[in-house]
């Protein structure tokens, strides 16, 4: 379990770097790194299938999406970047301290959660659960994918027209 804690610290650091870093491309890469670290934790918490999805879709697809958006939108020139960086630092320097403070205060509070766990599930196979019990979610996935296709067609047609 101690390894898990170490990975969690790395996860928070990756997220912090994503938010604090000055260039947008680095932020997108930081997001991919955060996803990758999260994947490791998911593997260690008995969820390999979801971890594969996280790695391929979030670390892969969504990062590509962000990077291509960033390269499509025009980057600032050098002086602007420098001025922007200073001003960003003014807004964001509080964040690491804030995060550390939140972590410390929470670790000192002994919060009574009174969790009572349910009985373990009968069906252990992800595929069986997904295909037999969560059919409605699968239908929802199909519907939302078609919606997404429509959205891309509509939003990008407008771009081409003008």
């Amino acid at each position, binding site marked *: 379990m101690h390894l898990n804690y170490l990975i969690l610290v790395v996860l928070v650091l990756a997220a912090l770097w994503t938010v604090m870093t000055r260039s947008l491309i680095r932020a997108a890469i930081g997001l991919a790194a955060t996803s990758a670290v999260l994947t490791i934790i998911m593997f260690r918490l008995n969820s390999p299938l979801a971890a594969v999805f996280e790695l391929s879709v979030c670390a892969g697809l969504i990062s590509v999406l962000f990077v291509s958006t960033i390269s499509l939108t025009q980057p600032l020139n050098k002086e602007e970047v420098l001025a922007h960086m200073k001003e960003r630092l003014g807004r964001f320097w509080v964040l690491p301290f804030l995060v550390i403070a939140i972590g410390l205060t929470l670790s000192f509070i002994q*919060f*009574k*959660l*009174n*969790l*009572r*766990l*349910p*009985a*373990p*599930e009968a069906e252990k196979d992800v595929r069986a659960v997904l295909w*037999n019990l*969560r*059919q*409605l*979610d699968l*239908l*929802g*996935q199909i*519907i*939302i994918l*078609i*919606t*997404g296709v*429509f*959205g891309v*067609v*509509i*939003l990008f*047609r*407008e771009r081409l027209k*003008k």
Partner: protein
Amino acid sequence: MSHLLILVPFCCVIILNLPIRKVMRSLAPVAAIVLSLLQVVMVLCFDCHFWQTQFGIIGTFFKFNLVVDRLAILMLLCIGIVSFVTAVIARVLIKERKERFDFASLLLISLSALNGIVMVRDIFSLYVFLEIAAVISFILIAFKANLLAYEGAFKYIIFSAIASIFLLCGTSLLLITSGSTDFSLINASLTAQAFSPSIILAVGLFLVGLFIKAGVVPFHWWLPDAYSEAPSPVSVYLAGIVTKAVGVYALIRVAVSVFGMHKSICTVFLLLGAVTIVVGAVAAITQTDFKRMLSYSSISQVGYIILALGSASPLGIAAACFHLFNHAIFKSLLFVNAAAVELQTGTRDMDKVSGLSQRMPITGLTSVLGSLSCAGIPPLAGFWSKLLIVIALLSTGHFVYAVVAVLASVVTLGYFLVMQRKVFFGKISEEFSNIKEAGLGIVVPEIILAAITVGIGIFFPVILNRFILPLGG
């Protein structure tokens, strides 16, 4: 056969997108109109064969857990009516054929998504359908492709994403205590371990998520932009049914059948409801944009629904559902009126137009009916639902909230009268002296919606015992 309500519109979209697009392109708007009308007819004959039929071949393929009760039937009726109206006015307001096709397809998909929200009995599936409806709303708001619409859509995306994250946090905390996402199982585990801190946290997070989606006051910032910058048919659809089903209906459903109306939840409902009513009404007075004023009025009316829910009596829940229905009807009517005014005059600024009643008599008359119903003037439908809300509050001993509800109603009447005087009454200005009434595609929905409002108001004594009181369960 409640499966079909989700499957048929969706399959219809797939068929419409088959490669033979030339034919399909003109067929899509008709399909949207026909399907939503079919839904209204199906719901109106609730006792017919359709609802009782057991699932034959379809049932072996799709094992969905869908339940249709009285509240769900009411919402299905609402969804049918408002989708019908939207589909009809979209034929007039959206000129280009390609856009018309896209709009009709999205309308059909959202029909199946909203039907899913209404019938589903599992909090994660609820989240899935909420998210589908939200994605469709993003696309529809950005449909017009101007900067303001994009901004409204982006604001909505950020708020909606945060809301979904709250919902998911609540879901996972409920999952860890009950081991399931099914409504009845969660309810059983909640009653078994009455309100430990983790459950309070879970319920709180879930409710905040739904409050954001419903546009209740501390979380309402996205709503006016999204409503007023969307194209006119989309505003009708969003204000009339989407946010009502996504936020308010989900709130009622979850509060009643999952969390079981606990006392602390009701206090939160009462407080937020009263604040929402007052803030929405006060903000509506100051607006000059027609659609923006209607958006704030919409926020204020959602406050009434939540206030009624907070009284926690069966009468209160019935009143909340009844007001939800009435609000869907008269707010769609008012947004259709706004669409007619914008179409004919080209502006939404209420200070620029005046005296339109002389030139657009039907729009003027129906908007008077809609506003009076919204303000709660007898004998229109809105009066009866507000009366039920006030009675429910008084009978559970919440006198202060009842007074707030009545006073805010006066404010509502005030801002609607100001709107009427500015836009429809008085002398018509030179600039608009030769405008005409909007086309048949807008006038007919206006008449239908106004007729429903008046009809429910007049026949209220008949439907009270048969339909409304059983809603409280």
